[in-house]
């Protein structure tokens, strides 16, 4: 009896693992400075921050490169978060978190955040070139 096993590349796994790792890197490199400046130093008026005034905030948000940056900053880490929270639930004994419905909920949630972010960035402030 021959024990032939057909190996198929797990493309879905590859994509979500890639998004998980990239989301982790982006969150590690970029989120602390945003939280420190926009969440603490700005509100305490220690330093002037771009989102403290309507004019400067809207001017920056109209830049297409800023929109692209914000999309990456907000959307990609959610694929990392989805993976981590799902496996944390598994570690806490929620075996349903391993199943396909849970994957649809968690990774679908990350896709939903991505779509909402795109919508917000495209509809909030018009793109201004130059």
């Amino acid at each position, binding site marked *: 009896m021959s024990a032939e096993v057909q190996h198929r590349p797990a493309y879905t796994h590859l994509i979500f693992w890639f998004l998980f*790792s990239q989301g*982790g*890197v982006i*969150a*590690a*490199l*970029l*989120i*602390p*400075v*945003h*939280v*420190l*400046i*926009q*969440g*603490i130093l*700005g*509100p*305490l008026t220690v*330093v*002037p*921050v*771009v*989102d*403290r*005034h*309507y*004019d*400067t*905030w*809207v*001017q*920056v*948000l109209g830049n297409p490169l800023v929109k692209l940056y*914000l999309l990456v*900053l*907000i959307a990609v*880490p*959610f694929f*990392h*978060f989805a993976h*981590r*929270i799902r*496996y*944390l639930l598994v*570690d*806490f*004994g929620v075996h349903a978190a391993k199943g396909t419905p849970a994957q649809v909920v968690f990774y679908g949630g990350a896709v939903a*955040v991505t779509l*909402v*972010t795109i919508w*917000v*960035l495209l*509809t*909030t*402030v018009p793109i201004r070139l130059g």
Partner: protein
Amino acid sequence: MTEATSAHVPSPHNLAGLPSPRRGEGQGEGSKEYPWRMPAAWWTRNRHYFFYVVREFTAVPLALWLLWLLVEIKRGGDGPGRYAPHQSTAFVLFSFIVLLFALYHSYTFLSLTGVIIRLKAFDRPVPPRLITLAMFGLWAGASVVVGFVLIWFAR
């Protein structure tokens, strides 16, 4: 091997008379299973387990803060009369707690890069410690650039 001795040797074709390895003495077909379950408080019993859970949990506060940022962007479309950035004590306290989790995520995740990333330079493997140091340097550089942009364009 004679025919008489081969009759006592179990083979895949001669297992009918042998007891099932899954069924010991006194266990019938209707035996009850007792699957092992992780104790609910497993993560509080060991320091390493606790910090592992903290590391995984960092995803929750970071996600909440990014959702706040998305709301802040959306509020940019409210117009100059209605736009008012958050500056309450509760928001600053929330951000401070998120910052602690964010720093822990950065430290733990970037520390792993030396283990995960395998690079070669001039046909020799780059030392993992150098890769980790480079990632921490990248973190510092990115923080300076982003911080500069957030402050400079506020003028």
